[in-house]
């Protein structure tokens, strides 16, 4: 799509142009304070009221931090392991991704323990899908049903041949 406009007529055209903004021109307002390293005035420390996992790349916690969802369960154990390794290591990030997936299952188990059955259809926003994309949703449901049937049929077939005996 070409756009045949007189670009100079666009409101604000060129008004923030800065010939000094070369790639080498720093975006930051350089003060030299970098050389003072971490010797700057800090606010008082937020009390540490929950377990906070901390990067190995810093010596002490920052002044403030979030307190949502402290680590717990198996996923928490994996996260604690991950935080024994620096942000540079795969053994930091891969366990965190694994922990996220385990945490999802823990969430379902927690719900069931509380007698709550998750409404996955509502949680996945399928009402919106039904309203705006009914055909796509129907195809998705049919594909899932077909895949489920295929897996069930395949397992049943193998079982009857004695593979699971």
């Amino acid at each position, binding site marked *: *799509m070409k*756009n045949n406009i007189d*670009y100079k007529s*666009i*409101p*604000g*055209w*060129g008004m*923030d*142009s*800065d010939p000094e903004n070369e*790639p080498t*021109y720093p*975006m*930051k307002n350089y*003060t030299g*304070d*970098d050389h*003072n*390293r971490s010797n*700057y*005035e*800090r*606010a*008082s420390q*937020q*009390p540490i009221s929950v377990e906070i*996992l*901390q*990067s190995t790349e*810093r010596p002490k916690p*920052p*002044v*403030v*931090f*979030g307190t*949502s*969802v402290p680590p717990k369960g198996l996923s928490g154990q994996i996260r604690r392991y*991950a*935080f024994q390794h620096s*942000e540079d290591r795969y053994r930091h*990030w891969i366990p*965190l*991704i694994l922990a*996220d997936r385990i945490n*999802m299952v*823990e*969430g*379902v188990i927690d719900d069931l323990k509380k007698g709550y059955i*998750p*409404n*996955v259809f509502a*949680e*996945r*926003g399928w*009402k*919106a*899908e039904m309203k*705006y994309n009914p055909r*796509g949703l129907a195809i998705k449901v049919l594909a899932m049903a077909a895949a489920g049937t295929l897996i069930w049929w395949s397992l049943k077939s193998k079982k009857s041949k004695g593979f699971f005996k």
Partner: protein
Amino acid sequence: MLAVNYRGPYRIRMSEKPMPEILHPEDAIVRVTRSCICGSDLHLYHGFVPDTRVGSTFGHEFVGIVEEIGTLVTEVKVGDHVLVPFNIACGRCNFCKQGLFGNCHESNPMATAVGGIFGYSHTAGGFDGGQAEYVRVPYANVGPTVIPADMDPDDAVLLTDVVPTGYQAAEMAGIKQGDTVVVFGAGPIGIMAARCAWFFGPSRVIIIDHIDYRLEFAKNYAKCEAYNFKSMKDPVEFMKKTTDWYGADVCIDCVGCEAVGNTLQTVTGRALIQAGSATALQWAINSVKKGGIVSIVGVYGPPFNYVPIGNVLNKGITIRANQASVKRLLPKLIDHVQSGRLKPSELITHRIPLEEAADAYRIFSSKLDNCIKTVLIPSTK
């Protein structure tokens, strides 16, 4: 209070959660009046960001009324209607003092590579976000900015991330008068980057995506050329051809880790063999001229991505990237909005009650109903 409650990839539930509390003397509690779903929230929603814990509340773009302040808060008062930058910044560390408010060193224990961000996983500090009725706002003397009386709150909420990120994408690109600028991605950030690019005086702004309705919107809103890469044999070849076989002066990546268009990138990204798909960045590097500039504001995961770094060397490309420094940019951007040069709220296509956040995420994620930007509105407004 009612809040978004993440339950795993593609699953959002609304739950009653405890009211946030003042945990530090510089905290404030804000009653949210509007919050947006950001394109980068979709990376959380899709399960791409490590350490996104079940039970988290997302939302880093919000405005609201100050309900309570800590004992050391002096810059805002109870009752102020404030916009809250998505970065949590102390204002004191060396990075903040140099204007790098997106790189604060005193807001995230879990990672040193990124500062604290509201509602953006424990990798970004473990803070609950603004897709809720109330939210805790640390460093209330630094981030929250009183919304000017004559400003539409719909404009204000987009000043918390979309406008500054789009603007900084163009700013980092070092655009010279007469330049050709290529923006990859016609989501809200890409559209805003294309619009803001004109402030720096280029002669051409081109936006690339694969969603026709978004390209049509971008063409009208950002006054740019808009092309669907699915109609091209090869996007990089197209870019070379349309710039007299020279390459664009500047390329801006506004897509990040869920780009489509390159099968190998998509497959390895989905399988998490790399931190999402880096197709847009690959195209940006290969489409820019020798000695050109690539500006990155698209979000990538922390571990690693496959990008043609050899071409960065061989072409002498400069890469500039950062989380937007919202506080640094706000005075200029508020002026652009108040003067009428920018009208960010025109990006908003859907205003949805907070209670229906799960549907809102689906609409935005699946690009249903020609969605560009979704705003969640709590019923307590």
